[in-house]
C-alpha cells in the first residue's frame, strides 16, 4: 500500500516538473534576451536587473506594492484560464473589468446613503454582474451564432474603453474634479480595509487568494470537469450528451464575473473612483500570466507574483537606472512567444 502511494507521489512530482520547467525556462530565456537588448543599447544588464529586483522587493513597502499589483493580475488570470480550459479564447478581460468597475462605482455613488456593510456586498455583486453581462454577450454569440470569440471579446474591449471614457467625461464626471476625466470619489467608509498600516495592500488581495482556492475546487467539481470536456472536444461532449452551448455561455459568464470582481477590487481597494486608465494593458497581461501559469491556479499565483514584480520593479528600474519601461514589455512579448511555441520547443525534444 505504501509502495503504491509512494509511486503515485513520484509520478505527481514528475508531472508537476514537466509542467513547470517550460514556464521557468521561458521566463529565464526572456530575461536573458532582455539582458542582451540592454547590452546592445549600451546599458549594464546586471545593474538594471538589480534595480528591478530592489524595486520589487527592496523594502516592505515595495514588496506590498508588488502584492497590490499582483491582485488584479491573479483574479484576471483565473478568469481567463476558466475560459481557456473550455477552449474559449476570451481576450476580453479588460472590457469585463471596466464594466465591473463601472457597475460597482455607479452603485456606490447612487446608494451612498446605505451603510458600508450593505453597500460593500452590493457593489461586489454589481461588479460581478457587470463583467458577466459583458462577457455573456460574447458567450451567447459564440454558442448560438458561432461568432469567433477572439473578435467579439476584443471588439467589446474597445466599446468598454470608450464607454468608460464617455462616462468619466460626461454622466459620471466629478463635478468638483477640476475637469479631470474621473468620477466623484466613493464615500470613504466604503473603502476596503487595509491589511497593513501604511501600505495599499487591502482585502482585495485576500479575495484573490480565496478565488485561488475556489478555482482549485472548481476543477475538482463536475462543472469543472464538464468545462474541460467541452474544451477538449465539442464532438465528444455532444456524444456524451453534454449541453455544449449552455456550457460555453456559463463559462463565459463565470469568466466575466471574475473579471468584473477584479474591477471592483481596483475601485474599492485602490482608486476609490473611476479613472480612464483603470484597465490599461490588464487584458493582455492576464493572458500572459494565465499561460505562464499553465492555466493552473497555483501556477498562476506564481506567475502573477512574478509579473507584478516585473511591473513594479520595471517602474523602479526606469526611475533609478534610466532603463525604459518598454524593456518590461519586451520581456512580456518574448515570454508570450516562448509560451506559445513551447509545445514545439519543449515537447518535441521530450519525445
Amino acid at each position, binding site marked *: 500500500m505504501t509502495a503504491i502511494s509512494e*509511486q*503515485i507521489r513520484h*509520478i505527481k512530482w514528475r*508531472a508537476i516538473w514537466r509542467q513547470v520547467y517550460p514556464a521557468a525556462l521561458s521566463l529565464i530565456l526572456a530575461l536573458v534576451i532582455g539582458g542582451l537588448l540592454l547590452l546592445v543599447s549600451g546599458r549594464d544588464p546586471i545593474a538594471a536587473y538589480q534595480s528591478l529586483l530592489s524595486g520589487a522587493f527592496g523594502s516592505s513597502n515595495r514588496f506590498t506594492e508588488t502584492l497590490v499589483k499582483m491582485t488584479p493580475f491573479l483574479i484576471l488570470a483565473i478568469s481567463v484560464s476558466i475560459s481557456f480550459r473550455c477552449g474559449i479564447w476570451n481576450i476580453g478581460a479588460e472590457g469585463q473589468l471596466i464594466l465591473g468597475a463601472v457597475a460597482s462605482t455607479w452603485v456606490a455613488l447612487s446608494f451612498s446613503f446605505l451603510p458600508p456593510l450593505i453597500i460593500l456586498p452590493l457593489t461586489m455583486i454589481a461588479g460581478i454582474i457587470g463583467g458577466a453581462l459583458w462577457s455573456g454577450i460574447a458567450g451567447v454569440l459564440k454558442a448560438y451564432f458561432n461568432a469567433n470569440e477572439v473578435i467579439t471579446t476584443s471588439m467589446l474591449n474597445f466599446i468598454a474603453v470608450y464607454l468608460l471614457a464617455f462616462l468619466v467625461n460626461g454622466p459620471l464626471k466629478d463635478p468638483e474634479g477640476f475637469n479631470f476625466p474621473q468620477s466623484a470619489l466613493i464615500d470613504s467608509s466604503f473603502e476596503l480595509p487595509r491589511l497593513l498600516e501604511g501600505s495599499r495592500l487591502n482585502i482585495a488581495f485576500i479575495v484573490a487568494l480565496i478565488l485561488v482556492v475556489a478555482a482549485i*475546487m472548481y476543477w*475538482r*467539481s*463536475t*462543472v469543472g*470537469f464538464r468545462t*474541460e*470536456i467541452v474544451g*477538449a*472536444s465539442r*464532438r*465528444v461532449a*455532444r*456524444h*456524451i*450528451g453534454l449541453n455544449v452551448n449552455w456550457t460555453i455561455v456559463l463559462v463565459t459568464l463565470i469568466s466575466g464575473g471574475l473579471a468584473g470582481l477584479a474591477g471592483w477590487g481596483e475601485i474599492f481597494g485602490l482608486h476609490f473612483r473611476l479613472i480612464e486608465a483603470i484597465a490599461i494593458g490588464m487584458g493582455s497581461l492576464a493572458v500572459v500570466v494565465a499561460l505562464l501559469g499553465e492555466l493552473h491556479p497555483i501556477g498562476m499565483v506564481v506567475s502573477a507574483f512574478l509579473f507584478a514584480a516585473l511591473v513594479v520593479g520595471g517602474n523602479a528600474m526606469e526611475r533609478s537606472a534610466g532603463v525604459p519601461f518598454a524593456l518590461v514589455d519586451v520581456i512580456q512579448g518574448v515570454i508570450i512567444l516562448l509560451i506559445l511555441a513551447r509545445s514545439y520547443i519543449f515537447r518535441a525534444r521530450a519525445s
Partner: protein
Amino acid sequence: MTNDISVQMKGVTKRFPGVLANDHIDLTLHAGEVHGLLGENGAGKSTLMNVLFGLYTPDEGEILVNGQPVAITSPATAISLGIGMVHQHFKLVRPFTVTENIILGLDEGSPLLDLKAAERRVAEVAEQYAINVDPRALIHDLSVGQQQRVEILNSLYRGANVLILDEPTAVLTPQEADDLIVTLRGMAEQGKSILFISHKLEEVMKVTDRVTVLRGGRKVFEALTKDTDKQQLAREMIGRQISDLERDESAFVMALAGAGEDLGIEHHDVGSSQKQAILTVSDLHVKDDRDLTAVRGMSFVIHPGEILGIAGVDGNGQRELVEAITGQRPIEQGQVWLEETETTKWSTRDYINHNVAVITEDRQKEGLVLEFNLLRNAVLKIFDRPSFSKNKLLKFNAIDDFTGKLIDGFNISTPNPQVEVGTLSGGNQQKLILARELSQSPSLIIANKPKRGLDIGAAAYVHQKLDDERKRGTAILLISGDLDELFALSDRLLVMYEGQVLGILPIENADIESIGLMMAGSSRSEIASNRSS
C-alpha cells in the same frame, strides 16, 4: 466507340507502412468509354486514382498518357495532361459564382479579369456537354447535384480528356444520379474517357462500358460490361472462395425466396413483438446533415441475448440510424422503443442515464478525449452519478477504484491510470471504451464498427466481450461493413441500402455472396430468381 487508348497504367504499385495498397495494377482507359472501377472499402480504388491524379507517386510501374510515358507528380501535372478529377467532397469556394470557381487559378492571359468573357466561355463549354448550370449562380445557392456539375464543368473547361469521378452518386439523390448518368454518357459519346468509381453494382451496370474490379489492392477482374453481370461482379468484389462458405444450395434459395416472406412478417409486425424486444425501431425516417432523408422507413427489433448485424456499404444511412437511436439526431418520422418505453424524443443524456452502451465509430474523436487520462475517460459519461460525485465535487478515490477495476477486468495495458489515453494503442483504447460501456450492465449495446483499425488480437478480444454480453442477455446492434465480422457475431443480419431495409435474414440462412450482392443494391427476389434459373 473507338479503340484509342487515352491512359494506360502498367504495374502500378503503391505501398504504405504495413499496407500494400496497390499491387501491380494494370488499367487501360479507352477514349469514348465509361470505365467502372469497383471494389469494397479499402480495395485500393482511391489510392489508384490518387496516383493517376498526381496526389501520390507510385513506388513502381508506369503511366502512359496518349502513348507517352509520363511522370504525374502533382495534380497540376495531371490537369496539364488532360486528366481531371471530381472528388467526393467538392473543392468549391462557396461564396463565389460558378464562373469564378472555374477560372480560379487559371491564367487567362490578361492581368485584368474579364468576367463577362469568362462567363461566355463557361456557358459554351456547358452547352457543348449539355450540362445545365448557370455560370453566374453562387455556389452556396446550388444543390449538391448542381455543384457536382460545376466540378465536372471545371475539369472540362481545363481541357480534360480523362475524367475521374470518385463515387459520384454517393452524395446525390436518385433523380440527380440519373441525370449524372445521362451527362456522363453524353461526354463519352464526344470522345472523353471516364473513370467511374463506385460500389453500387446497379449503376455500374447502367453507365459503364467496361469494368475493372479491385480487391485487396489487386486487380482481380476486367470485362466489358455487356459480358458480365451483377452476380459475377459481386463475387469478384467480395472474393470469397464459394466452396469455403457454400451452404446447401436448396436451403439457400429457400431462405431467399421463401423464408424471406416469414421474415417480412416479423419485421413489419412490430406491435406483437414489442413486449419481449429490447429495441424496437418502427418506420424510422432520419435526415442527414444535408437535409436529405438518409434513413427511409426502417423497422426492426432486437431481442435479449441477440446480436442483430447491420450489413451495408458505408454511407447508406448507418451513421444517421445510430445517431437517431442514441439521441444525437432528431427523428423525422417513426418510433423507437426501449423495452416498453417510447424513446423517440429522448436526448443523448436520457439514453446514457438508461445505460444504453454505445461503441462509437470513431473512438478517438467521439468515444474518448485523447488528452485526458484513463481516470477521466473512465467516468466521462457517468461522472455526475452519485457514485462518482457528491455535492458537485468529484470523488477521486471512487474514480481511482473504478478505473483500477476496469483496467484489471479488461487487461488494459497502461503504465498507470494517469497517462493520457492518446498514448495507448488502439486496442487498449477500444478496451477502455468497452470496459466503460459494459461496466454499467447495459441492456442494449450499439456497436458501430467495433473492430475498426484494431489488430487481430484486440479484434478477437472485442468479439469475445460482445459474445459474452450476448450470453448475459444483452441485446446488441452491430453495424459493420465487414462481412467477416458480421458473420462471426450476428444472430440475424439486416441488409441496409440507401437508408432502407433490404432484408433481414437469420444468419444460418445467409451467405456472404448474397449479402454482398444485397449490400450493393440487388433486391432479394433478383438474387433468388437468378439462383434458381
